[in-house]
């Protein structure tokens, strides 16, 4: 049996898992506060737009979204298998394509800001 190309999907999964762990909880906390009616100053249109308009802001937002999306897509693929859904190739294709499409969309919206 030949060596597997799994690292192609696993490496970004691992990187994304780290990004999710470090970044997503606090981001969810911010939008959750907004949901509860205490919109943090940083989520006002001016502040957030200014952040996303800068190069670093774009890079951070894109990196967080793309890697988190990929990581959760990959984990969801494994979870489907764990739940007994054996059409792995189909599941993998759908989920990875979804992650890539989401990332491209994020990039396009960021470029418009």
């Amino acid at each position: 049996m030949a060596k597997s190309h799994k690292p192609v999907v696993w490496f970004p999964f691992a990187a994304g898992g780290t990004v999710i762990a470090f970044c997503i909880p606090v981001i969810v906390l911010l939008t959750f506060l907004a949901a509860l009616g205490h919109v943090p100053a940083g989520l006002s249109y001016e502040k957030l737009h200014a952040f996303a308009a800068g190069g670093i802001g774009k890079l951070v937002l894109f990196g967080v979204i793309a890697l988190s999306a990929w990581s959760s897509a990959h984990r969801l693929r494994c979870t489907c298998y764990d739940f007994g859904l054996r059409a792995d190739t189909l599941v993998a294709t759908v989920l990875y394509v979804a992650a890539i499409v989401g990332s491209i969309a994020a990039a396009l919206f960021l470029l418009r800001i």
Partner: protein
Amino acid sequence: MSRKPLVRECPPTTWYFRQPRYLRYMSREITSIFVGAYCVLLVVGLQRLAAGPAAWEGFLLALRSPASIVFQFLCLIAAVYHAATWFNATQKAMPLQIGEDFVPGNVISGAHYAVWILLSLVVMFFAGVF
């Protein structure tokens, strides 16, 4: 003597009920559903942000629906649970040997927790939470 071993199949859709640790594993894996869905929310948010101030205000308002509050609460739990399991795993994936001895695993994981909390506080500070 002839052999006639009895093969027992692992039930493909119900195996995780066999041991509590499997349920713990599955709950870790299921966090990915919430993180994935939250990513969709983030992409939608970016789209609204790009569409101008009125669109963004509408997005913030939409966040306040009860369904969104429940959803984000679940996402928060999922994200924190993912973070905890991830940091606990770092000591296994990246052991650190200094001289003969290995740095104790909880020091490695603890350092990750510390950086995580610090980073979260910094982000909250710059986001104007306090």
